[in-house]
């Protein structure tokens, strides 16, 4: 069994024109933030489709963070209108589906290094409290209502 303490894996999609700059600035300014994020730079937060969010969770992410420009500041004028629609929708869907609180969207300008650090820290702590993404375990546990096979080829029996 894995006895290491749980360290959340968070996929962070960050807009090139704002949040990514904030992350960069935080680094240059020596502002410490948790090492749990796997940053992915995108040209606009609107390029993140629900597919990417779902793919991240499927690949084992414990949380997904999206950072975009403040409304009105979008480099492409209206890209972030789409972002918030999608994230609002995905939040509702994931909450209902049973994956609550693991997706978060924040508007962070390239000057807001401190805000970036605070948000990442708080989101990481939130995920840490929620625990690991439950999907892989539910698909594997022999105690679940369906049966899983262990490595020896012996299938657990559950009535």
């Amino acid at each position, binding site marked *: 069994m894995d006895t290491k303490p749980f360290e959340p894996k968070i996929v962070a999609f960050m807009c090139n024109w704002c949040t990514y700059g904030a992350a960069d600035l935080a680094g240059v300014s020596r502002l410490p933030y948790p090492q749990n994020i796997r940053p992915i730079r995108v040209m606009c937060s609107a390029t993140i489709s629900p597919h990417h969010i779902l793919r991240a969770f499927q690949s084992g992410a414990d949380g997904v963070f999206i950072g975009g420009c403040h409304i009105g500041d979008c480099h492409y004028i209206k890209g972030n209108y789409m972002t918030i629609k999608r994230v609002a929708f995905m939040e509702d869907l994931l909450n209902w589906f049973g994956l609550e609180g693991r997706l978060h969207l924040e508007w962070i300008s390239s000057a807001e290094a401190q805000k970036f650090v605070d948000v990442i820290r708080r989101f990481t702590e939130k995920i840490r409290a929620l625990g690991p993404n439950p999907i892989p375990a539910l698909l594997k546990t022999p105690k679940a209502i369906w049966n899983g096979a262990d490595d020896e080829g012996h*299938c657990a029996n559950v009535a």
Partner: protein
Amino acid sequence: MTNSLADMDRSECLFVIGSNTTETHPMIAKRILRAVERGAALIVADPRHIQLARFATVAVRHRPGTDVALLCGLMHLIVRNNWHDQDYIRQRTEGFSSFERVLQNYPPERVAQITGVAVEDLVRMAEIYATRSPAAIYYAMGITQHTTGVDNVKACANLAMLCGNVGIPGGGVNPLRGQNNVQGACDMGGLPNVLPGYQPVGDEQVRSRFEEVWGTRPPGQMGKTIPEMIQGMQEGRIRALYVIGENPRGSEPHLRHLDSALEKLDLLIVQDIFATPTAQKADVVFAASAVAEKDGTFTNTERRCLRVRKAVDPPGEALEDWRILCRLADALGAPQNFEKPEDIFEEIRRVTPSYAGMTYARLGIDGLQWPCRTEDDPGTPILHVGSFARGRGIFHPVAHKEPAECPDDAYPFILSTGRMFAHYHTGTMTRASTHLDREQHTAYVEIHPKDAQTLSIEDGDQVRVSTRRGAVALEARVTNRVRPGMLFMPFHFQEAAANILTNPAADPVAKIPEYKACAAAIEKIMGGETAQERSV
């Protein structure tokens, strides 16, 4: 199948052995899952962790080729605990006492050692199968494609009779047939030993009856099965082969052997809808028609004869198969006076008692299940009700035998072959289909993560799988669907044909080759070696 598909809704227990039903017979798996949700027990025994195992009450992964031992072990436990149906055995069967003695050789501890299934799992399987009635057995090629195929089937039948499950609704021994009309091809006498309706060629009276209708007396000497024909080709006794809608250069075991046999033929005629590898070797190719291009009937796994209707014309000059056959018979000086498939069906009715009551009008869309002897016979959903076709059911004692080829130092793995969900047989049809080809484009071999780690194979790596008969290069898929020490390959892919590897050793009675177990080796392909077959 002794019973019908609709019957599955009445089973209290379903025992699926040697069938990856969700992938190979998805619409039968539909009914299995429905039964599970209704509360029926599901027992799954398959060397791989198949999708159905996730929903099973008990699921075990036994070592490939140990089905007889597994089934005998279950029967041993059933008899030991007095769970068997003694009234049924007394009234409807014979040979139980000698059979019971053979079962003594299969105590659970020994069976666990042979099969790799834990004793407590064996006990649970036996108890569930024996105490939940009616219980049905479903099996497919995982049971039959072994050198012990016939024994495996007999063991299944023994188990069903032992618990009084043959001839009752919701029970039975139900082989799931692999091809759309394999049942019909057998019913129509597409076998060397029987005429249509399983009437033996050696029977004088039968041949006289056929002579009355056909005007020619059919020969009385038994013909050759496919493996015997291949042997005959090698020895020069078979000089011409007429292949209709089949691709032996994909489906036969040990393809090299087959190829050298085909070389020796004077004449190879192939009738197909695609330029299959077999057609590419042919001297004459007849362009035939696919399912939507002709009228006729298919008979499915539950013996249900169904109407097939023409929707479009065959492409180009291609002709309906029955027209090709009529023209060939004509050219050989034996004109067949059929204007449409229905005329042929009328003749079938005259010579095949089990189809006598069917007409195209009666078949409609629902079809009829044979035997259907008269025009007011509603058909027969369940066989052997009240008594067996032969009177009493016989318990055939069977004994465990290892596969013809077992793993050794040179070939340490057991290779099993079969189908995957998006493709079909040798892939001639499915790989011509855009969506299906997109779903799975390349050949692959499944290997357990532990074995993969030992051999430094990662998911997606190119590997070479070899046996004593040949080698192929293909992609590795690392998954715990297979047991450690086992490999699985689908045989749909010509460029890495699984049947280059398979063992032609066959069941002595049914001549069915052992596709499900042979010894194999696997290695990672390093550097720039091309993904081409190594000559052995």
